[in-house]
């Protein structure tokens, strides 16, 4: 079943994360660009807050000790990324 609020929050995370990916690659070859770095840090803080919110509501986005889980182990929960949600 499609959970609209979950999908909406995930889309928001994707949009901010795209900014961090793009700025990350740019900074790799422009490490002295202070403005880009400030933008990267700003988006990263936004992304961390959004991921916290998502994980509190819908379970872990990442494994191997990067997010805590409720009982029972929520990492295995559907949907997985390739499944229509």
């Amino acid at each position, binding site marked *: 079943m499609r959970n609209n609020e979950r999908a909406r929050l*995930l*889309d928001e*995370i*994707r949009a901010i*994360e*795209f900014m961090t*990916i*793009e700025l*990350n*690659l*740019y900074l*790799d*070859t*422009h*490490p002295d660009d202070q403005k880009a770095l400030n933008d990267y840090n700003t988006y990263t803080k936004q992304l961390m807050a959004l991921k916290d919110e998502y994980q509190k509501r819908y379970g*872990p*986005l*990442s*494994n*191997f000790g*990067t997010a805590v889980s409720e009982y029972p182990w929520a*990492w295995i929960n559907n949907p*997985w*990324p*390739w499944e*229509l949600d």
Partner: protein
Amino acid sequence: MWIYEKKLEYPVRIKNPNPKMAKLIITQYGGPDGELAASLRYLSQRYIMPIPEAKALLTDIGTEELAHFEIVGTMVYQLMKGASPEEIKAAGAADYFVDHGRGVYPQSAAGNPFTAAYIQSKGDPITDLYENLAAEQKARSTYEYLIQVADDPDVIEPLKFLREREVVHFQRFGEALMKVQEYLESKKYF
């Protein structure tokens, strides 16, 4: 090490199965200019990069290509899901079906299984970065051909995103190449 994130970099929500399109798009999964080749190429080449900018860039683009590998795999999965054997046969994908069912297998559109012969890791940073510039252009061309033969917006939108990423990677590799060349020149004279 790598940490998995349980989401796609770009969403894929294909509502209508299309085995013919699946059989074409799979070339960006396991074909000569596909995402698996790209990821293995950059993640294998990075060890001998002489400057931190290039080590970081190859690690990060190699990682992003793994996310693209997952996007393409998801497209193939969703395009095959729910297609009947009759529809698969009518779409000209029965050859794929008898070998792999509705599973996702790294092969080219022509059916050649993935091989590391698609990539090079030459131990020379200049050579490797030139290879990567060409690789990004080849992947861009392939995405453009796929977009030309696709008619479903659910399919075209992720393909356009992936095409655009090739253009950005090409730009960044060009900058890394210039920095590596400057570094090697400076070592020669001082």
